[in-house]
């Protein structure tokens, strides 16, 4: 017992000494870009590549000398608890950002459920938040209940997102499946998350509206590893395609692998969650399922497809993180996270050009006002990005990608075509 007491005292002293040196690091010419993502455990495969997209943007800006004399610092907080995103932790992290005056903007979150608790906090404080991945309509659109999240200040937009909402992405693939691929009877699986179920619901609605039949609609929770029973059952109904609403960490790769093992070699379709890198990228659909198995797979991405900035981004990403053991290639949401950071940093730049001597509170409000102004647009790796009066992207393009098993890097997603859904 004595040792324990002495040990505890030493530890406490060490903590005090150490932390005294810390806290608000950097001088007073540093501004912080907050990042709220699930970064540990199983969720790391989702959050880490996304984080690195934002990190790349900040590093590049700092190399160019910062903005308006300020250095930018990335401030990531992990809201995963026991390997899964946690709304409560997300709320606490958002509180931390709001109460740190040096934070002028936040990138994230990844899951729409976390956004539901973070948006009110950010809205109340007037802190800009840009999500690379939230797709649920209810977060922003008044007709789906978006005003519930900004009750206190309904006209103040502090939440913007670059991801296409489910009501655009799902139907886009439905149209492609019916018209371009000529499919008739689909097995639709979702991972019972806000994103997966949402996009599968909108997909199915449009699919059936176009006259397609649904062989079966199955929910397979994000922890599922054994899809064999589902596949065996579906095969009796002879589908000519499979749509998976969800992300790869929910089991898309395993599903595809097991499909091919049972001999179900029909096209495999999915939203942007499955377009996450080539055959050598950690955690990519192509790597897990194998390039041959991934053949005949199609995915949608809410961005311009063949855009020079995208190739530059990919190359820069790989160069910057080539020393990292894991996640050294871009994931599905690395580009969007980079775009979000670009939006926030560009807004900062524009605001400081106009008011170079603003204090931190004014900077925060200025960034928010600039970014959320529908009249402003930004050049990002996703194309020309602007936000409407609810904070949704006005980016009209959905691109379609197909897996080419013979492409470099052990098979890769190859751009096929893009369609303009802006009118929707």
């Amino acid at each position: 017992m004595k040792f324990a007491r002495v040990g505890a005292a030493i530890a406490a002293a060490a903590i005090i000494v150490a932390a005294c040196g810390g806290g608000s690091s950097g001088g007073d010419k540093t501004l912080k870009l907050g990042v709220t993502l699930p970064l540990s455990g199983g969720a790391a495969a989702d959050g880490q590549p996304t984080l690195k997209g934002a990190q790349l943007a900040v590093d590049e800006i700092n190399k160019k000398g910062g903005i308006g004399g300020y250095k930018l610092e990335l401030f990531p907080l992990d809201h995963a608890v026991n390997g899964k995103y946690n709304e409560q932790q997300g709320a606490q992290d958002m509180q931390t950002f709001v109460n740190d005056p040096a934070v002028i903007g936040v990138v994230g979150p990844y899951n729409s459920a976390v956004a539901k608790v973070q948006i009110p906090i950010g809205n109340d404080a007037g802190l800009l938040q840009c999500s690379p991945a939230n797709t649920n309509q209810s977060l922003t659109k008044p007709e789906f209940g978006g005003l519930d999240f900004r009750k206190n200040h309904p006209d103040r937009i502090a939440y913007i997102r670059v991801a296409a909402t489910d009501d655009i992405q799902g139907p886009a693939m439905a149209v492609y499946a019916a018209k371009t691929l000529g499919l008739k009877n689909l097995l639709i699986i979702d991972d019972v998350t806000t994103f997966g179920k949402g996009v599968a619901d909108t997909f199915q609605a449009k699919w059936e509206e176009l006259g397609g039949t649904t062989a079966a609609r199955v929910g397979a929770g994000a922890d599922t590893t054994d899809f064999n029973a589902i596949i065996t059952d579906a095969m009796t109904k002879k589908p000519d395609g499979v749509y998976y609403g969800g992300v790869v960490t929910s089991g898309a790769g395993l599903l595809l692998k097991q499909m091919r093992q049972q001999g179900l070699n029909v096209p495999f379709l999915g939203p942007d969650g499955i377009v996450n890198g080539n055959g050598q990228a950690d955690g990519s659909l192509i790597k897990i399922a194998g390039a041959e198995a991934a053949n005949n797979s199609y995915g949608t991405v809410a961005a311009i497809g063949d855009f020079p900035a995208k190739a530059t981004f990919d190359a820069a990403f790989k160069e910057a993180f080539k020393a990292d053991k894991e996640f050294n290639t871009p994931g599905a949401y690395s580009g969007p996270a980079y775009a979000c950071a670009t939006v926030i940093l560009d807004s900062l730049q524009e605001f400081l050009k106009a008011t170079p001597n603003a204090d931190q509170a004014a900077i925060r409000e200025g960034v928010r006002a600039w970014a959320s102004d529908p009249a402003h647009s930004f050049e990002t790796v996703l194309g020309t990005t602007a936000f409407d009066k609810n904070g949704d992207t006005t980016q009209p393009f959905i691109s379609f990608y197909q897996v080419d098993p013979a492409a470099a890097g052990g098979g890769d997603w190859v751009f096929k075509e893009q369609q303009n859904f802006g009118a929707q």
Partner: protein
Amino acid sequence: MTAQVNGARASTSQSGGGWRLRLSDFSDRHRSTTVIAGMALTGLLLPLVVLLPPFNGFSNQNVWLDGFTIAGIYVLLALGLNIVVGLSGLLDLGYAAFFAIGSYTFAFAASSFTGLNFPFWPMLLVGAITAAIFGILLGAPTLRLRGDYLAIVTLGFGEIVPIVILNSSKYTEGPNGIGGINPPELAGFVFPTVGNPWPFYIMMLALITICMILIYRLQDSRLGRSWMAIREDELAAAANGVNTVTTKLLAFALGASTAGLAGVFASSKLTLVSPNLFRFDVSFTVLAMVVLGGMGNIWGVAIGAFIVFLTQTVILKQLNVFFGNLGVPFLSDIDFLQYQFLLYGIALVAMMLLRPEGLFPSRRRRRELHTEEDVEFGEHGDPLGESPE
């Protein structure tokens, strides 16, 4: 034999520990006052402590207070589970289910999902009672089960409830969770869920105080003694006239009601509930809090909950910042976020190997495991007498 033991102990009573013994004697006789005083003291000290370095370096006071309020939710949960596991010896591995039931009860009663707007304060009671009913429903079929069979059934219940919630989208919004839950209102004043953390903080202090007083009353009552009797030897207890059926059911019910209460508070503060918040790791965390805090010891469990929560939420998450500031070259390069579970697991194992009875074990427990510390019990006379702890 008792007299002999008494005599042996009395002879060592003169040595040291005088003020501690007098304090614990006082607290035994004036439980409620001690609880109120203790909680008030804690409630006042915590906001002051976080204004000092090093704590103010990590976050400012508002964030800390918010964190303490959330910690309070876990303290309530731990107090409740302590009734089931610590006092009554019923191994419950699915406690999060009752937390979920309390949370969703309030979500149904006061959110834009259902359009109802029941007031918060009576709902605290309603949530507790609803959870208690489910506690009885769970307890009833398990009365015949031996210890570890009970564990798996409670584990199953703890798994079934989130699964049902997740897949009944029509009634529960499924994975989206129910948002837009109303915050509490008191005489026209709406508790702020963003910004000012003080209203919720003070409410949490009050809730914990009330719960602790009630639980102490229960523990010192006949029911409490029946619980402990069942924990030690169910057969002997039955032979002594303890109605094991009602005793066990009451343990489940009262334990569950605390979780229900905590659930109502939590959903009202977060304004959102989702099945994701009630998975097995919540049940396990609360169990770890009870065990690490010292099973059976009410204050111990509360402190244990606080410490474990801070460890999980603050320390483990802030390791990167901490080591980054230390500036040790090797350590700064490690991404500690990826090592969270390793460190947490090592801490759990080490803690159990070093002090399996927990940080603040009940006196009886400590005596069972560290016989050389009998000296401390000298003053308290016959252990079968007035202080059953």
